[in-house]
């Protein structure tokens, strides 16, 4: 399956890009997508424990399954306000 990954804030800077196309196997979860992206951009690895994520512009759990064409967003700890 092909999913589109969006990276924000420091994750974007560490990866050097805001959008990543990503190929994962059937039955993959968002966590699998994260491992794929962090594998390609090792600078992201320290965020493994603190990252949160969204699927198609809604918050999701890392354990949620992904479908072909999904937009997955990875969010470092937030600091709005």
């Amino acid at each position: 399956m092909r999913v589109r990954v969006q990276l924000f804030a420091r994750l974007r800077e560490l990866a050097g890009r805001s959008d990543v196309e990503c190929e994962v196997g059937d039955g993959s979860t968002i966590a699998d997508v994260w491992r794929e992206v962090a594998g390609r951009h090792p600078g992201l690895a320290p965020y493994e424990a603190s990252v949160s994520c969204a699927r198609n512009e809604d918050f999701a759990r890392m354990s949620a399954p992904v479908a072909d064409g999904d937009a997955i967003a990875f969010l470092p700890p937030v600091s709005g306000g």
Partner: protein
Amino acid sequence: MSLLSITSQPLHAGVLAAELEREVQGRGEGCGAVCTFLGIVRATHKGRRVRYLEYEAFEPLALKTFDRIAREIAADWPEARVAIHHRVGRLAVGEASVIIAAASSHRAESFQVCRYAIERIKQIAPIWKHEFFAEGDAWVEGATADIEDETARRRARDIAACV
């Protein structure tokens, strides 16, 4: 004007407060109190002089998060109404990064709702602050956004209501 927004334009609390007041005035007991909160770009951060800030947001999700916060408030303070405008892009020292207005018939609720909103924004809104100093820059990273974390929500409510 929308009560919830993300914008690169300067924020104006007065218009927001007036709109909210009109809305609450027309129902129930009416509107007796409006509390507003302005988050301002501070001149220093941990002793370092700030040149400017940049705010970045995952806009569609940030707007949904504001809407979630407004619905949480409607559940806990049914007589009150809240408005949230958050700025993105480059901000100078002294500019407002966020404005919150809370209107209700009595003052206690207006303070509580306003405080609850800013606490929740800091917990779960997908927005990031990037600080630029005379030398160097730093992303600020606070809470891991987790909308299912009921302990965090309760903490925001406790801070707001002082339980």
